[in-house]
């Protein structure tokens, strides 16, 4: 099954991670990896998730985009992810 990484910028209300994870699960994606950190000098969070599913990643991306507290969603496909790993 294909894995995808999603990078999100979100608001910082206490329940925002629950909202993101609920949508990931409900829309049929399995969580493989998760990282969350506060963005310095701002009231937002940076969340990176790696997910796996038979379903196209655009379905999840568009549902996450609908969350009021999610300001930005970026999907990286596998080739971009490996390129990032190499450059890191």
């Amino acid at each position: 099954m294909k894995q995808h990484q999603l990078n999100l910028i979100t608001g910082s209300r206490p329940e925002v991670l629950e909202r993101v994870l609920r949508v990931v699960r409900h829309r049929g994606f399995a969580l493989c990896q998760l990282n969350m950190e506060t963005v310095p000098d701002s009231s937002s969070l940076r969340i990176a998730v790696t997910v796996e599913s038979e379903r196209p990643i655009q379905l999840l991306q568009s549902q996450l985009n609908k969350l009021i507290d999610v300001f930005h969603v970026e999907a990286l496909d596998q080739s971009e992810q490996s390129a990032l790993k190499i450059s890191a």
Partner: protein
Amino acid sequence: MNGAQYLVKALHQQGVTQVFGYPGGAIMPVYDALYDGGIPHLLCRHEQGAAMAAIGYARSTGKVGVCIATSGPGATNLITGLADALLDSVPVVALTGQVASPLIGTDAFQEVDVLGLSLACTKHSFMVQSVDELGQVVADAFRIARSGRPGPVLVDIPKDIQLAKAELDTLIELVAEQYENDEQEAIVAARKLLSEAKKPVLYVGGGVIAADAVAELRDFAAITTMPSVTTLKGIGSLDPNCPQFLGMLGMHGTKAANLVVQEADLLVVAGARFDDRVTGKLAAFAPHAKIIHLDVDAAEIGKLRSAHVALHGDMRSVLPQLAMTLNIASWREHCAAMKNDYPWRYDHPGEPIYAPLLLKQLSDALPENSVVCCDVGQHQMWVAQHMQFNSPRNHISSSGLGTMGFGLPAAVGAKMARPNDEVVLVSGDGSFMMNVQELGTLRRAKLPVKMVLLDNQRLGMVRQWQELFFDARFSETILSDNPDFVRLASAFDIAGETITRKEEVPAAIARMLQSDGAYLLHVSISAEENVWPLVPPGAANQDMMESKP
């Protein structure tokens, strides 16, 4: 002024003129503020009733419906209503009391994690963290509820915040919603597909109502002369007398609507979402059609069926840009012949009342601009098939969630919103009992809602499926122990009568409509009557059943 009084001022500022709810411990400061706060409150007899009354109010007017409940069981009782509003994109704001902040997380009396519960059944939700943010949260809640694709928003307010000192000058200014229009290239591409199409069909859903684009839609339909179909929620959006209108499509749609869509080479999808009750077997739905998809919710575009052209701007500005004359005379004639060949039939043997005919007679007898609310099941499909609606705000049916018990409280909300229009409830004996306590709300507010109860002493739609798909094993669907409904209504001072024969119907409908107050017309119908046509589960829409095999 305390937070609760501030909240009532904020509701005033949002233009709220009616709220529905039920008091309790953790929301008492708000009820104290409502006591002389100038916003009328209607006590429903269950929080679910309050949520559904708010939905009926919102759907019949386009305004935001507001419901209020206490913490714990009050809030959990709202959940079904919120889920209903989410699935049908209804703008509702739910205000719940919460135990005081220091008690949250201690399993206090009537404490439940309402914010956690709300995540799956609201468009958005808030737990207010300080009285200083209350104004912003209320303004955001109303903005989110009514903007884009509308939906329910929950605001959970701890009791200490309701009691905290608040400053009036922090009320938030209201800002009008702006929509971005779509790129011109998509319009050009859509016009090209339209001009090339030989067999186009307009497939209309509830998004048209949310966009307030009924007039633009009807202009588009009139200019293109394109054959058209609607979903359950789209009913009323198109002129029912338009010759190109073929009725509802889907599981219980008209034969003409389903067959025409299967033949189409282009679907113009206006505010609809390829729901499984519409498409039947998705892979076989409109197999030859290209798709132009108009929806304000970008997540609906490509969710179940890829679009050749996607337009997710404001339908009111997009539709006029797509309107053009089309050279489709032979297709139009083909569709008209189909409509003519497969009309509804009302000939029915014997004395017993035939519900589809009764509903047609009711539809013909109702004054212009009446609102019909219904419950869920066979009667709901018969209403959709056999009654005519000239506005989507006049047909209020729990479509996405299919919530039994929806009809009576929705009718309460609709009648409160539109006291000068006739409001009729069409219900079934199963659904009616699910929120029967709202008869008390009718009595309390002296609401002259006319109720038609189609009683087959069965959970009819489940019975129908048991008969057709479960070897007639009627598991828990026989309700021969129903109460005497007319006596039940009379306990709430509601007049009524029972009818059992076809010939009684016209006069009984007239008596109901001429009565002064609320009225229950209890209609005894056969248990064996089924809803036809029926696209069986997993089948393509052209493979509909029209009678028992």
